């Protein structure tokens, strides 16, 4: 009788780097680098009828929310406006938005959308003040940033 081989052949790991690289490239393409440190809480409201926004270079972002736990003892708990990496007052929104607009190439300036990333616990009053500022500088395309999902129960 022939002697049967007892050892189980080991699985070849030669293709493992390829698989991992593929995953790596996938993540490199679908994600973006976090470029702004959040100074304010930013729990976006949930909604169902969302539409995708244009390319990233045509967007000006405005964050609004309460200062995060790290900063709340310095900045208080009133909602603040974060533009880029700093906190600003409502009067400065207009200057900031115009300077951001000036940085964009001329061809896409009239396509710029202002994305309002506002925490769901902010009062509407502040939001309408921001909208008024934007109206004054004639930036009329806005986006109420939200995440896909069902409505949160916090509000009821």
């Amino acid at each position, binding site marked *: 009788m022939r002697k049967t081989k007892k050892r189980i052949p080991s699985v070849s790991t030669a293709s*493992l780097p390829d698989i*991992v690289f593929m995953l790596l490239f996938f*993540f*490199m393409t679908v994600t973006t680098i976090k470029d702004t440190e959040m100074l304010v809480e930013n729990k976006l409201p949930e*909604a169902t*009828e969302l539409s995708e926004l244009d390319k990233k270079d045509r967007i000006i972002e405005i964050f609004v929310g309460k200062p995060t736990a790290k900063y709340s003892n310095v900045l208080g708990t009133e909602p603040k406006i974060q533009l880029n990496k700093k906190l600003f007052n409502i009067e400065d929104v207009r200057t900031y938005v115009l300077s951001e607009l000036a940085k964009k190439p001329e061809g896409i300036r009239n396509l710029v959308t202002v994305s309002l990333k506002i925490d769901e616990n902010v009062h*509407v009053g502040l939001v309408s003040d921001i909208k008024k500022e934007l*109206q004054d500088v004639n930036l009329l395309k*806005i986006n*109420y940033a939200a995440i896909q999902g069902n409505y949160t129960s916090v509000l009821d």
Partner: protein
Amino acid sequence: MGRNREVPEINSGSMADIAFLLLIFFLVATTVQNDKGLIRKLPQKQNETLIDINERNVFRVVLNKENQLMVEGELLQIENLEEEVVNFLDNGGETGKCDYCMGSKSKDLSDSPSDAVISFKSDRKALYGKYVEVQDKFTKAYRILRSRESSRLYGMDFKSLEEEYAKPETTQEMREILKERIKTIREMYPMQISESELIFKS
């Protein structure tokens, strides 16, 4: 001399480790892009809005500081809002002006979708989350009606019409057709949401 001619192979066993390291770095340092939302166009700056519209063409929605919703003078649960909006928009009260409307042709609701205006006022103390929820309901009502018409006319719902238009592989001729279709549907149910104080002429 018995020299080894072959170039020694580089050991690639650690390649996977290197790739994993890179992968983990990217997982930590990046976020998935979350750029979705409700897109709106603000009106031009004006001091006051003077419009000449019939009272029944205005659908009043008020959000108070307790986050309660008042629709046409009555309290309403937010779950029923979208249905009310659809009824209002799709009413088609004036005969001949909207032959695709399927509403009840009530005397108290809008004449036609192009006359219908939603007036949405919210208290400064209301929560933004609720505000977005109401805006979302409006969008949904319009989407329902637009999709119905788009399915009837072109056999596909409004969202896929827009998606088809945005696809890079769509040909130029097809894009022209789609653009025309999207425009037609949008004109059938134009989104008219006003957040300013409405002042009536009469």
